[in-house]
């Protein structure tokens, strides 16, 4: 059965390690914060100027001076630090973030990503996505395997305007965990109850399937 948003987020949380500095994009990636394993210390960066995002505030404790990159009210943890946008992107561009998780419209076999612009639709902007994908050491894309019409989002070459090239390392979808390798996509895990055949049929790019593909352990 395909994963829901929380399932994708839960699987991505398994990629975290103690002491990681992580930037979580808007949407599904934000949910990853809810699944950080007990006892693991992970520092979440908000590119608008915070290291150490805490949980959402309690009602009545919202602070207009304290928001995340999605402009939602947040809190901060002990040991947090605030800084300006140029310092924030110095961290990002300088490769100091251990892991970036973001959404996408499409990912290509080469690890190219399209995530910010659909021709003919209102273009809102790339925000910090281009900076993040151009510089993060490790980039995981969180998205559905297909678009609402059923078209694969893991394709040979991106058809939409690019956000970055050759940068995505791993994709976690509602159906599978797929790595980007020099030889194309490589199937790593399948969602519980989802068959390799279904994943293969919904992956437009070259998909390498080697040996038994384990189910995700969620």
């Amino acid at each position: 059965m395909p994963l829901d948003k929380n399932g994708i987020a839960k699987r991505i949380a398994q990629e975290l390690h103690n002491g990681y500095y992580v930037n979580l994009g808007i949407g599904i990636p934000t949910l990853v914060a809810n699944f950080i394993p007990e006892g693991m210390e992970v520092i979440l960066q908000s590119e608008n100027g915070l290291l150490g995002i805490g949980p959402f505030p309690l009602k009545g404790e919202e602070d207009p001076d304290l928001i995340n990159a999605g402009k939602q009210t947040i809190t901060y943890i002990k040991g947090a630090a605030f800084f300006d946008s140029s310092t924030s992107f110095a961290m990002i561009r300088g490769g100091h973030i251990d892991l970036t998780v973001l959404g996408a419209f499409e990912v290509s076999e080469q690890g190219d990503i399209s995530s910010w612009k659909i021709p003919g639709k209102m273009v809102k902007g790339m925000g910090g996505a281009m900076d993040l994908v151009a510089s993060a050491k490790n980039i995981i894309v969180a998205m559905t395997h297909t678009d609402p019409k059923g078209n694969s989002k893991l394709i040979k070459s991106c058809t939409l305007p690019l956000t970055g090239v050759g940068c995505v390392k791993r994709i976690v979808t509602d159906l599978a965990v797929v790595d980007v390798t020099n030889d194309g996509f490589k199937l790593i895990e399948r969602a519980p109850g989802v068959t390799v055949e279904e994943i293969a049929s919904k992956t437009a790019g070259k998909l390498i399937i080697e040996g038994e593909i384990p189910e995700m352990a969620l």
Partner: protein
Amino acid sequence: MNKVVNDAKEAIRGIADNMTLMLGGFGLSGIPENCIAALVESDVKGLTCISNNAGVDEFGLGLLLKKHQIRKMISSYVGENAEFERQLLSGELEVELIPQGTLAERCRAGGAGIPAFFVPAGYGSEVADGKEIREFNGKMHLLEHALTADFAIVKAWKGDTHGNLIYRHTANNFNQAMATAGKITIAEVEELVPAGTLDPNQIHTPGIFVQRIFQASSLEKRIEFVTTRS
């Protein structure tokens, strides 16, 4: 040091049609509300506004958009604004989109006398169109140029009569870099104190970058997306 002005109206004196402004803030957080209100009242038009976002329909830069005072926005993300979208689609408004980190660094560079620098962001995308591309350490980079403005308008938490500024939490965002890059920089602060009151080790924007400062008369500090846990 006579940097203190009475109010926003006095602070924005000299801002004229077709000028380029930098405005601090991220979303609605840390935006110079009083100065925006004074600009709306001033009827100045044809503005090019460098601001990470473009406000919402009834607040922030949305107020200037509504009155057609902005000719061009230079931003990284301009969602959450229906009037903006309408003006853009109708061709009344021009928009230049810049990756957020590049935007921040271009402002910092403008203040720091660095006319151009290389960054990897945008390589392979349409952002790279027409830009010089060069490889460093096996990775492709774009040459990006500094941004400056006729006026930079920033919002700080505390400020002193010398123009030293301290920001609070994530309301710092673009304010610190933009404060350095205005030919004239205006600071709107929640609390204006005499020089010598702030801890000199804790100044985010040293006063040399600020030409005019005033205490905001009232701040709404609207929240765009109130999000709470149960």
